C-alpha cells in the first residue's frame, strides 16, 4: 500500500516538475478557460444582465472544456516520447501510475479553477463568497469525478486514431451527471439565501460518483493499457 502511493507520488512529482519547467500546458489551459468564459458571456448576457444561473453554468462548462484540453495535452506529451510505455514497463503497480497522473491533472485543474471562480464572480456579479466551504466541496468532488474518468480515457486513447476528437466524444456523455450536479449545486449556493441542503445533496451525489468511477478506473486501467 505504501509502495502504491509512493509510485503515484513519484509520477505526480515528475509531471509537475516537467510542467513547471515550461508552464506551457498551465498557461494555455488557463487562457483557454478564460476565453471560454468570455465567449459564453457574450452569448448569454443581454443588456448587461446575465441570464439566471448563467454564472454557475458557465463556470462548470469552462472547467469541462479546459479539463478536456488539459487532459489531451498532458497525454500528448507522454505519447510524443513514448514514455507511457516506459512507465508500463516498470515493476510497479500499474494503477499507481493512473493515480499519479490523476493527481497531476487535479493540480492543473485546481489552478484553473482558482482563476475561474474569481473571474466568473466578477463578470457575473455572482456571490460565490457567501458559502465558500460548500463551493470548494462541490468543485473538489466534481473536478475529481470529471478528471478520474478523463484521465482513464485520455490514457487509453493514447495509441488510438482520431484521439483528439474521441476524448470529448467519450468523456462528455459519461460526465453529464457531474455537470448537472455541479451546476445545480453551485446555482443553489448563488441564490439570495444559499440553499445549503440542496448543495449538500448534490455534493453527496458527486462524492458517490467519485467513489464509483475512481474504483472502476483503477480496475480497468491495467487491462486497457496492455495489449
Amino acid at each position: 500500500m505504501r509502495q502504491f502511493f509512493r509510485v503515484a507520488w513519484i509520477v505526480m512529482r515528475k509531471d509537475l516538475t516537467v510542467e513547471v519547467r515550461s508552464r506551457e500546458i498551465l498557461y494555455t489551459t488557463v487562457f483557454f478557460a478564460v476565453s471560454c468564459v468570455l465567449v459564453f458571456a457574450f452569448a448569454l448576457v443581454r443588456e448587461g444582465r446575465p441570464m439566471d444561473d448563467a454564472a454557475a453554468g458557465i463556470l462548470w462548462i469552462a472547467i469541462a472544456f479546459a479539463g478536456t484540453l488539459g487532459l489531451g495535452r498532458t497525454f500528448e506529451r507522454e505519447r510524443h516520447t513514448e514514455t507511457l510505455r516506459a512507465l508500463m514497463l516498470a515493476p510497479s503497480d500499474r494503477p499507481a501510475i493512473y493515480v499519479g497522473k490523476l493527481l497531476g491533472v487535479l493540480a492543473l485543474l485546481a489552478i484553473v479553477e482558482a482563476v475561474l471562480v474569481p473571474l466568473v464572480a466578477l463578470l457575473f456579479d455572482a456571490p460565490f463568497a457567501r458559502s465558500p466551504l460548500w463551493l470548494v466541496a462541490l468543485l473538489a468532488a466534481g473536478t475529481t469525478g470529471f478528471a478520474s474518468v478523463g484521465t482513464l480515457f485520455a490514457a487509453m486513447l493514447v495509441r488510438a486514431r482520431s484521439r483528439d476528437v474521441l476524448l470529448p466524444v467519450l468523456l462528455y456523455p459519461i460526465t453529464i451527471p457531474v455537470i448537472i450536479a455541479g451546476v445545480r449545486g453551485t446555482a443553489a449556493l448563488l441564490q439570495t439565501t444559499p440553499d445549503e441542503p440542496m448543495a449538500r445533496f448534490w455534493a453527496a451525489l458527486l462524492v458517490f460518483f467519485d467513489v464509483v468511477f475512481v474504483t472502476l478506473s483503477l480496475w480497468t486501467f491495467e487491462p486497457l493499457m496492455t495489449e
Partner: protein
Amino acid sequence: MSFDFDELVFADVSRNFGRRRALTRVNLTCHAGQIVGLLGPNGAGKSTLLAIASTLLAPSSGEVRYGAATGRDAGPGLRSRLGLLGHDLYLYPELTARENLQFFARLYGLNDVDATVARALDRAGLAERADDVVSGFSRGMRQRLALERALLHGPRLLLLDEPFTGLDDTSGQALVARLRGLRDQRRIVLVATHDLDLAEGLLDRVAVLRDGRLLAVDDSSASLRERYRETITSAAAR
C-alpha cells in the same frame, strides 16, 4: 521478490493485428551470456518480437518463456528483470539527465538512488552534462543515457531496438564495447538492427526475420553481411 532466469525462449510465437500477420510461428532460444541479433528488412516484425519479449504486447498464439516462467505470468517480478531500449528513447526532454535517471531509479524502487545514478552517468560519459536538460542533447548522448536508464535496475534480459541508429562511429564502437561487457556479465542481449557493419563480430547468434517469419538462425562465425544476403536472397528465390 527475486526472480531470475538464464534462458529466453520464443515458442511458436505468432502475432496478428486484425488480418495482418506480423509474426508467424517464431521459435528462438537465447541463453545467458549471449548477444543475439535480429536482422531483417523493414516491416519484418523485429520490433513486434521485441515488444512481445518485453511483455508490452501479448502473442496471439504461442508463448514466451523466461526460464521456467511464461510471459502470461508476467508481473512486477518479471518486469524488474527486463530492460527495453526502444526506438523512441523514453526520455523526458524537459528534465535533466540526472532527473531522468533519478525518476526511473525511484520508480523501480532502487536503493541508494544517488549513487546508482552517479555511476550510470559516469558510464554514459555524461557526468559533466548531468544537470543539462535532455532536449539539448545530441542523438548519441541521448542514446547513451537511454541505455543506462534501461540498465539501471540490472536487468537479466536487455532488449534493444535499432540502437545504432543515428550514432556516429565513435558512439557506435562504444555501444559495441558496452554490449560486450554486458555479455560478459552473463546477461541475455537481444538486438534488432540494420547495421551489419557494427554488428559484425558482435553477435553470437543471428536470427533473420522476413515478413514475420524466422528464416534462419545461425551461430557460425562467417561474415555477417554474406550470411544475411545469402539468407534473404535464397528466401526470395523460394
